[in-house]
């Protein structure tokens, strides 16, 4: 990966006084938005229940609209989270499921269920997010001590950490008799999203907004501690803030829909490949891309086995694994 070149590009984009690519209305983005909008509208009208039949309108409000909103919120949040983590770790292969963040969120969720069985969903979200934050900080701390920071070592460290945490979660689940539930919880699926079940996801909309506000600082932080400090950035603070935002997004998404593997990996990488590495002007693209990918996968999951559903995580897993390998091969070829 050509980090220095992209860094220069990013720095020039972030530097004040220069024309900003993102400021110009981009026809490309408009097309992307329209395509995504088409997918979102399709999603509203894909389903088993005949909306024209009696009670169709009511059903639309009970299941279709909440589900599509959940797709938009979770999709954009996880894709943006991936982008932020990639900036903070200066590595293209990092996202919540390859940094262990999601696994920590899962552990937090299980702990909340075991320790506070009567707690409400808000408490669970807080605990899952706190666990995700703590875990991501552990990941960052380990990264700082790792000398060999080649492209692939970083995600391997994250995946290893995630595996260790998953093992602890599984052990805890076995000893507390929650193993049966574990699979159902963490397999990302929008099947059970109905009115009254998804509303907490609006929290991630706030996270996305905060990331937009912070985007320039995150871009500078992505240049590394030394450059960022030279440019007058409170590097540690920005890293903490960015990690916290990603943790909240992962925690909330894990509690409501489960894991969405590779979403944060594919979307930012494809956007970078097409547009270069300017976080600020890429953000809307990543948001839109995340929504489009997760919505498309969910539509496929709903259609292939009608009237049954295939969890979106399975489709994402297949698409994502293929994309991951393709990206690795691309990086290898470039040397």
């Amino acid at each position, binding site marked *: 990966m050509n980090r220095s070149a992209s860094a220069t590009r990013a720095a020039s984009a972030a530097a004040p006084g220069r024309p900003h690519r993102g400021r110009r209305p981009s026809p490309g983005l408009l097309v992307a938005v329209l395509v995504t909008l088409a997918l979102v509208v399709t999603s509203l009208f894909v*389903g*088993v*229940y*005949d909306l024209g039949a*009696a*009670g169709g309108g*009511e*059903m639309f409000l*009970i*299941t279709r609209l909440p589900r599509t909103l959940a797709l938009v919120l979770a999709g954009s949040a996880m894709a943006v989270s991936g982008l932020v983590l990639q900036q903070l770790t200066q590595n293209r292969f990092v996202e919540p499921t390859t940094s262990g963040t999601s696994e920590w969120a899962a552990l937090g969720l299980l702990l909340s*269920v*075991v320790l*506070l*069985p*009567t*707690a409400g969903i808000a408490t669970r979200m807080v605990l899952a997010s706190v666990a995700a934050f703590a875990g991501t900080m552990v990941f960052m701390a380990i990264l700082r001590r790792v000398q060999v920071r080649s492209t692939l070592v970083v995600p391997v460290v994250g995946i290893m950490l995630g595996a260790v945490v998953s093992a602890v979660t599984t052990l805890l689940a*076995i000893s*507390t*008799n*929650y*193993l*049966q*539930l574990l699979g*159902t*919880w963490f397999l990302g*699926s929008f*099947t*059970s999203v*109905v*009115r*009254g079940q998804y509303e907490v996801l609006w929290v991630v909309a706030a996270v996305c907004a905060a990331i937009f506000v912070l985007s320039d600082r995150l871009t500078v932080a992505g240049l590394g501690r030394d450059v960022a400090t030279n440019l007058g950035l409170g590097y540690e603070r920005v890293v903490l803030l960015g990690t916290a935002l990603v943790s909240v997004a992962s925690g909330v998404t894990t509690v409501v829909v489960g894991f969405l593997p590779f979403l944060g990996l594919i979307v930012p990488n494809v956007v970078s490949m097409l547009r270069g590495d300017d976080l600020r002007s890429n953000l809307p693209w990543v948001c839109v891309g995340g929504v489009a990918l997760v919505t498309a996968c969910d539509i496929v999951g*709903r259609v292939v*086995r*009608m*009237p*049954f*559903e*295939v*969890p979106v995580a399975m489709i994402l897993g297949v698409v994502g694994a293929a994309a991951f390998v393709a990206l690795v091969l691309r990086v290898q070829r470039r040397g």
Partner: protein
Amino acid sequence: MPSRTTNRRLVAVLTAAPLALALAACSSGDESVAGGTEETAESAPSTVTIEDNHGSVEVPVNPERVVALDNHVFETLSAWEVPLVAAPKGIMGDGLWPEYTEDDAVLDVGMHREPNLESIVAAEPDLIIGGYRFSDSYDDIKAQNPDAVVVELAPRDGEDQSSELVRQIEILGQIFDREDAADAIVADYEAAVADAKDAYDGESTVVGLITSGGEISYSAPVTGRSIGTLFPTLGLEPAIEQAAEDTSHGDDISVEAIAAANPDWIVVLDRDGAGVGEGEYRPASELIGGSEALAGVTAVAKGQVVYLDPDFYLTEDIQAYTALYEQIAQAFSGAA
């Protein structure tokens, strides 16, 4: 040369013939002796030959030290006051069979995924009733307990489950010399099935569901967990007809699909009902009865939802099915 061979043959025949006769006599004598022991054995049998899931097995009658691993048999053994020396207490629920789960003398085999097979060896059993959740450990159990008889009686996949339940209880009756008691259990079961069949109007549509972890899944006719067997046994009309991909845990289905199928009846297995009863657990009655999207479905609107006993996931024995068919018979006739 030829004469020599003929001679040899002759000699061979001459010597062989009486030998053969003698052998025949001997063997017939043996037969009569064997017949004799069998006759005496019938009055006080010490072993009985049964057909388990793996073939013919000779089992001691009324074995003293019994290990049971299959959830289907605990209810029967409990009713017949058969003591156990080891049992998987983790999958026996709380308070279902306290004489086994709360007795420290009964060694704990643990959960099926992380079994403590050593405790079976330590219990020095004469008979091990394995299988079902423990069927993966069959070979290990057999190898580690050469002195014990190992049988598997759980309903086999692909067989008519109703007759498999009957087969299981009849074999238990033979082993524990309670054939009359076993017949009575079978009679109860068949009566319940007949009642439910009579109460069914023959055309109302039914859908089987499984709830777990706050999610609703679909239990397919015939093969689906617990509920599937109701369809062939009672001749129920399925509201959604599709083969199952995950027979034991059910397939991912949206409330919309259930609403679109608009079943007259819903039968629900609450998979978490007996295991964990707190926290994230959302009871089936809340998931289905409390669902906005399902409120307009005939089954929910008319209160025609049959919730299986919360312990059903841990019992699944012929007694549990008897109770279920009685419950269904009552529900069906109440609606008619």
